[in-house]
């Protein structure tokens, strides 16, 4: 699944309830909804425009449902993704096991996809440090091993959320600049600055 409207496909994966939708909500709408948990059904798509230097990057974000029911379908959501944000809940170690499952799956099926490990709900640790159930250094080691980036975020306070998505966008620009330049690509007049132009200026 690829669309003309977006530059980079980004997929969020992770056990149900770890906070994927909340992360998107924070990134796109800059808010946090405390209310009752509404699990995602299937997957939700939303486009988010970020600027990287002079240029804009449109991320097509797929917020998938964590429920096992959709596991067999998950391929259609991550296929062709340039980045995967694999989430786990910092207060729940079983959710980290699930994250490892997704990392494996991506490594096997989506080679070109960069992986961002994301420990969520860090605000809960600030309330009570004993709530931490997934060790920071363990994840860092694991991230090195699988060549993933690693963030700990809170959608409640907003901590690290913008940084995470900004990093995704920057990496995309950096990794695709060279390809973009050599590829044939039509110029979209509606889009002021495309990565194509950006690529030109620097060479």
């Amino acid at each position, binding site marked *: *699944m*690829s*669309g*003309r*409207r977006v530059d980079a496909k980004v997929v969020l994966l992770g056990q*149900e309830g770890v906070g994927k*939708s909340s992360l*998107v*909500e924070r990134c*796109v*709408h800059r808010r946090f909804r405390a209310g009752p948990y*509404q*699990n*995602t*059904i*299937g*997957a*939700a*798509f*939303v486009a988010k425009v970020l600027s990287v230097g002079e240029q804009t990057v449109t991320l097509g974000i797929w*917020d998938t*449902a964590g*429920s*096992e*029911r*959709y596991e*067999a*379908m998950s391929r*259609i959501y991550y296929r062709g993704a340039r980045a995967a944000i694999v989430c786990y809940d910092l207060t729940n170690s079983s959710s980290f096991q699930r994250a490892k499952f997704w990392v494996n799956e991506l490594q096997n099926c989506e080679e070109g996809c960069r992986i961002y490990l994301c420990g969520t709900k860090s605000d809960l640790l600030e309330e009570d440090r004993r709530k931490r159930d997934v060790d920071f250094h363990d994840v860092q080691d694991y991230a090195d091993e699988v060549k993933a980036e690693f963030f700990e975020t809170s959608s409640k306070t907003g901590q690290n959320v913008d940084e995470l998505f900004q990093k995704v966008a920057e990496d995309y620009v950096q990794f695709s600049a060279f390809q973009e330049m050599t590829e044939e690509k039509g110029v979209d007049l509606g889009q002021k600055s495309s990565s194509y132009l950006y690529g030109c200026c620097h060479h």
Partner: protein
Amino acid sequence: MAADVHKKKGWEVPNGSLAPGNGQHAERSESPTPGLAQGTEPGKGQSAGQEGAMFVHTRSYEDLTSPEDGGAVVRSPEERRGEPAEPTSMEQISKDFSELSTQLTGMALDLEEEMRQSQEGKLEPSPQATRHDSVLSGKEEEDVTMDTWRMHRKHVFVLSEAGKPVYSRYGSEEALSSTMGVMMALVSFLEAEKNAIRSIHADGYKVVFVRKSPLVLVAVARTRQSEQEIAHELLYIYYQILSLLTWTQLNHIFQQKQNYDLRRLLAGSERITDNLLDLMAHDPSFLMGAVRCLPLAASVRDAVSTSLQQAKAKSLVFSILLSGNQLVSLVRKKDQFLHPIDLHLLFNLISSSSSFREGEAWTPICLPKFNSSGFFHAHISYLEQEMDLCLLLVSTDREDFFTVSDCKRRFQERLRRRGVHHALQEALRTPFYSVAQVGIPDLRHFIYKSKSSGLFTSPEIEAPYVREEEKERLLGLYQYLHSRAHNSSRPLKNIYFTGPRENLLAWVTSAFELYICYSPLGTKAGAISAVNKLMKWIRKEEDRLFILTPQTY
């Protein structure tokens, strides 16, 4: 996971009577002159038969059980070869149903008593007034008091045939496992055969079992609903589960592992099932087996439908615009009919989750009455943040998200160009009309269903039915009338019910069903003239209250 819906063969509805030649280009026929004779009922729209109809032929709850039902469910060839083919089970259920109800009429004493009085009255306006007419006495009302109704909590359990809990409406399944065990024992005691329905009456409760292998559904109800209607609700729950998993996958799972814990796969869907049960207790759509339209000026609706029709894509089967649980417009692929039950499940899915408010959802969904073996992919989104207008685009191709998403954009653009946006917004401000518009002082509320179109209309429930319990009581009265009218051993064409709080009248013909509720001070003669007046009013308003010219791509 089950394969996606078959792209070609799987669609052909085998039964010619269910899928007539398309009539989408047929102009809407001249509205028949107002009359009460059968076949000229309002809301029917285009000429005769299913031409241009929106749904497959609907026959309220019998629809779930009739042998004809098997024809509406299209199966993949693989599945047809497999032995536990569903048509057989549906026939079986149908058979069980008829056996059961004969048996039960004898059991339920109140019904028997009622039957004795059923010969007395007769309602004039019916051309086919027969000995089936019935007048129920006010003493019936005694049992239908507030207190009774307040208690009419209904417990629903779903378990696997191995006795593992799958769903429970109240309380955790864990705590109820022992109850489940008892139920399982009961089920096996009652029925060794698969796919059957049984019920027990005890202590003012009805316990109804529906066995749809590999699941068993149980309701413990304190309600005046008939067994058939309770079973009907349980079947909705069953279909709800199928819509998440498909029949094929459900069966496959339990073939692999008999004592599989299905809750793993259904995690997060409890809310959808809870919502369905709540909706069934409040919304007459389910009872009527029909769909209600948002009242909308015909010109606006036509503009919406045309815009929707033009924003098509190869993989689209249905484009549905809805508001609340009311239909605004529906465009379908030529020769493909959506069953009201499937549409109800979609309505329920959307109303049960606020998650669709953000972004664009793209989710696998099985429409069990259309094809229980595969998934469609549905694009679900709200047109605007603060507007209760949800667009549902049902596609056969799960890879087609961006094409379908583009259909939405095109639809919105066309809406804007046609300048109907404002009129739509205006209509959404008053999604229900007041019964006062009809101009019959004694008339409090009514439900009118046009059988051929599968649509019904009903005003807002107003005073004196203000509190939730009162509203539920009114729906309960309709449920009761409905079950009396459709009792399979003694169906009644006309029912006239006088009570201390309200008078009720039901009139069922082969073309329509009408249920009215009016002041207890009104006379029977008054009721009859009210019916005439009401039918004329509906006729006059039909192009606002119904969708008379359904569109295809």
